């Protein structure tokens, strides 16, 4: 950018105005002013998606650090580092470089742990955000596409997490890969082909770690970046939904403007998410791969579970009875295929199709920009709660041995208990949730802040409760919403460049 020689800027907005003009000459940025004015409704539940987004950024940054040290190879090397129990053993380069990262690289363990914690928070935040979107009906027209993109993001995030924690090639994650191999093997007709192609032969082979690596650091992140970008673009283009309330209609958005308020709050939130992940990475150990030892197909540890977002699969595999179909010269291991291939397929297909299902069921093809209070849609809320309960029970079912150990129960008893609970709990959750929603509907002021009551005892001994005047400090006085001001003027000035007959706050949409 060229510096004007010692001449004062003639722009009423000074040097900054000059820079903006220069940018506008080249890029036409001034036409993007509406982006600065964009209003974001700021209910707290809209922050959950941001947790996911910012933990994704932390994943990218910490991941870049890790790729500079991790070696994606199954070739054997002899360990000569500082962790004595491994010295002299022949371990894979992937495991050696991960242990090296944990012990010999300054800050390496912190980065590894931040990366893993960020992943848990990422998937957890997606699930919570998705639940918010579901229970408030934000997936309805015109946002079905965003729901599809979001569900795909969840599936990819889960896959990415599995691939990521399998990269260090330790005993616990290697067992997970063995199980994944057998699941692929169990698919009828094509299973053995897919397994042999993906792994380059029988388990374990030498190609799976490098393949997992490139899928984890290149292929899926690229898809994720693209989908996250599309997800955010749609959100900006279609504008965020909002809860019904004072001044809020189907045709407006009430909240804070993008610049500067929302940008300040959201950047602050980014820093806090990063800080929280760093604090977790500092104080809470996660995935101590050196304690597990490297993966060797003959070794196994007890009490091995996958990370929580895969827990529902492990739980489903544990409780499934041993039904295997064998005949006509072929075998279909139903005890594997049903819980780990068919069941998740059904669940995720249901999730993908939900906007269509609801549209068909409620015969509602209208545009919806206002959200539902979950208690006002009891059937949808109950259905969602049921599926959630099913997944939660399956997740709990993945730790049958831990439960049996903790409560000093028989393993056999715990397993049967889990089998029964998996069927019973979702069936009970539906009517219970339905009833709760109905009760909340009938109760005025449900979910709102309660006011204090002054209880007066009359001379007759009767107690009368009247709402007390609200404390001055307690009052939530919301002003009427105004359009975002372009110019801020002193009270006696006239705003420049506003035509006298142009009413303030009216958009001129010209095409």
């Amino acid at each position, binding site marked *: 950018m060229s510096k004007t020689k010692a001449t004062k800027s003639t722009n009423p907005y000074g040097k900054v105005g000059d820079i903006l003009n220069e940018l506008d000459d080249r890029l036409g940025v001034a036409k993007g002013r509406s982006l600065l004015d964009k209003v974001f409704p*700021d*209910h*707290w*539940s809209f*922050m959950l998606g*941001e*947790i996911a987004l910012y933990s994704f950024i932390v994943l990218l940054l910490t991941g870049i650090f890790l790729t500079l040290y991790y070696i994606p190879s199954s070739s054997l090397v002899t360990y000569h580092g500082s962790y*004595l*129990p*491994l*010295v*002299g*053993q022949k371990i894979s380069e992937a495991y050696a470089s991960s242990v090296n990262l944990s*012990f010999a690289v300054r800050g390496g*363990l912190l980065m590894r742990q931040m990366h893993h*914690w960020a992943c*848990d928070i990422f998937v*957890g*935040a997606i699930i*919570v955000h998705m639940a918010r979107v579901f229970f408030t009906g934000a997936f309805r027209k015109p946002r079905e596409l965003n729901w599809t993109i979001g569900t795909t993001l969840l599936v990819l995030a889960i896959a990415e997490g599995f691939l990521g924690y399998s990269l260090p090639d330790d*005993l*616990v994650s290697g067992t997970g890969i063995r199980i994944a191999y057998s699941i692929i093997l169990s698919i009828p007709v094509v299973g053995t082909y897919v397994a042999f192609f993906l792994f380059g032969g029988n388990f374990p082979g030498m190609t799976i770690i490098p393949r997992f690596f490139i899928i984890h650091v290149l292929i899926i992140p690229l898809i994720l970046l693209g989908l996250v970008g599309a997800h955010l673009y749609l959100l900006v283009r279609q504008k965020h939904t909002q809860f019904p*309330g004072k001044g809020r209609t189907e045709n407006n958005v009430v909240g804070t403007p993008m610049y500067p308020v929302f940008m300040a*709050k959201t950047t602050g*939130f980014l820093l*806090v*998410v990063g800080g*929280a992940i760093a604090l*977790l*990475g500092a*104080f*809470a*150990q*996660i*995935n*101590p791969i050196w*304690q597990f*030892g490297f993966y*060797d197909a*003959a*070794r*196994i*540890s*007890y*009490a*091995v*579970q996958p*990370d*929580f*977002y895969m*827990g529902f699969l492990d739980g489903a595999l544990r409780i499934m009875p041993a039904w295997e179909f064998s005949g006509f010269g072929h075998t279909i291991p139903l005890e594997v295929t049903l819980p780990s291939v068919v069941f998740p397929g059904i669940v995720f297909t249901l999730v993908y199709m939900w906007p269509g299902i609801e549209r068909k069921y409620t015969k509602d093809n209208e545009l919806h920009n206002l959200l539902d209070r979950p208690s006002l849609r009891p059937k949808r809320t109950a259905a969602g709660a049921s599926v959630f309960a099913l997944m939660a029970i399956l997740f709990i079912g*993945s730790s049958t*041995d*831990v439960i049996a150990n903790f409560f*000093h*129960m*028989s*393993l*056999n008893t715990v397993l049967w208990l889990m089998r029964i609970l998996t069927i019973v709990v979702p069936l009970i959750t539906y009517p219970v949730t339905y009833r709760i929603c109905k009760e909340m509907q009938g109760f005025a002021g449900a979910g709102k*802040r309660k006011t204090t009551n002054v209880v007066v005892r009359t001379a007759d001994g009767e107690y009368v409760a009247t709402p007390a005047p609200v404390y001055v400090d307690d009052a939530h006085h919301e002003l009427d919403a105004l359009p975002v001001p372009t110019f801020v003027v002193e009270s006696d000035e006239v705003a420049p460049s506003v035509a006298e007959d142009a009413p303030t706050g009216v958009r001129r949409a010209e095409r």
Partner: protein
Amino acid sequence: MVLALALGAAPFVAVTPASASGATGSSGVTGMTGTSGSTGSTGMTGTSGSTGATGSAGMTALRSVTMSSTSSPFQTTRFNAGTPYSSIVVKNPKTGAIESYGNSAITYNVPSSSLNALGEALYMSNCASCHGVAANGVPSGGTSGSYPNLVGLGAATIDFWVASGRMPAANPRAVQAERGIPRLNAAQAEAIAAWVNSLHPSYPAIPSVNLASANVSDGQALFALNCAACHTIEGDGDALAANTYAPSLRNIPAYQVVEAIRTGPGNMPRFTGNLSDFQVRDIVAYVTSEIQHPRNNGGLGLGGLGPVAEGFVGLLLGVGLLALVGYWVGERE
């Protein structure tokens, strides 16, 4: 007089047992050789006796060594595998009874017979009501029931169960006796072991392990292959079938690890000829160092429960806390 048991702390070398403990009658070491051992120990006929055709042939070689025991449950003919067929054997010069045997890794000490009287007294008051006055599992005044026969199991077995607090059983009806605060101390346990063993002498004897030249790395490999399947790779133990469980290894003294490995208490398989004393020593070194003092460089260990605990922390602390921050950032309406 009590043999000084090295509880895994100080190395106990079998070469000079007399001066260390003052046990009566042992004035020196007989039958000592270096590590080759197969012809040095008295009474040993090497491996020629065991041609492997039948199991009993393998036993004859040991018979002369093992104080006329019939088939011990812990049979093996492997050298340096917890039986008196080991590098170093120390015998009582007067009676010829074996007082200790072993090698540079582990020494197995037969409890002194001077403890028998004390042991018998302790046994009668603590154990006879279930295991019977003859220690054969037939309680007095009752029919032979489900109480184990203790005869011929070797001193290490008895010592392990009593010294780890599992016996006397707090709950005789429990499926599996729990490790607990021992009601009888180590010396008393050894005395009981001495008396029960004297009924029908057998092996293994009570071990003490020398961790000086242990290879922790080999220990890790052996632990992962043999032990982690029940006790978990972290050594925390877990529930097994039908109300049995593998106990945690976080608080067990080194010599009890050897006892458990060699005798296979309860449902635990026993490792006799499948692990040499050097391998057992390496496993013990790994357990007492890395399992009992894990390197938690990354912060709080979260109980070693793995991804389940991590998931709870990530969801409740991570997402939960951040959602609370979000509650502050956003509005409530």
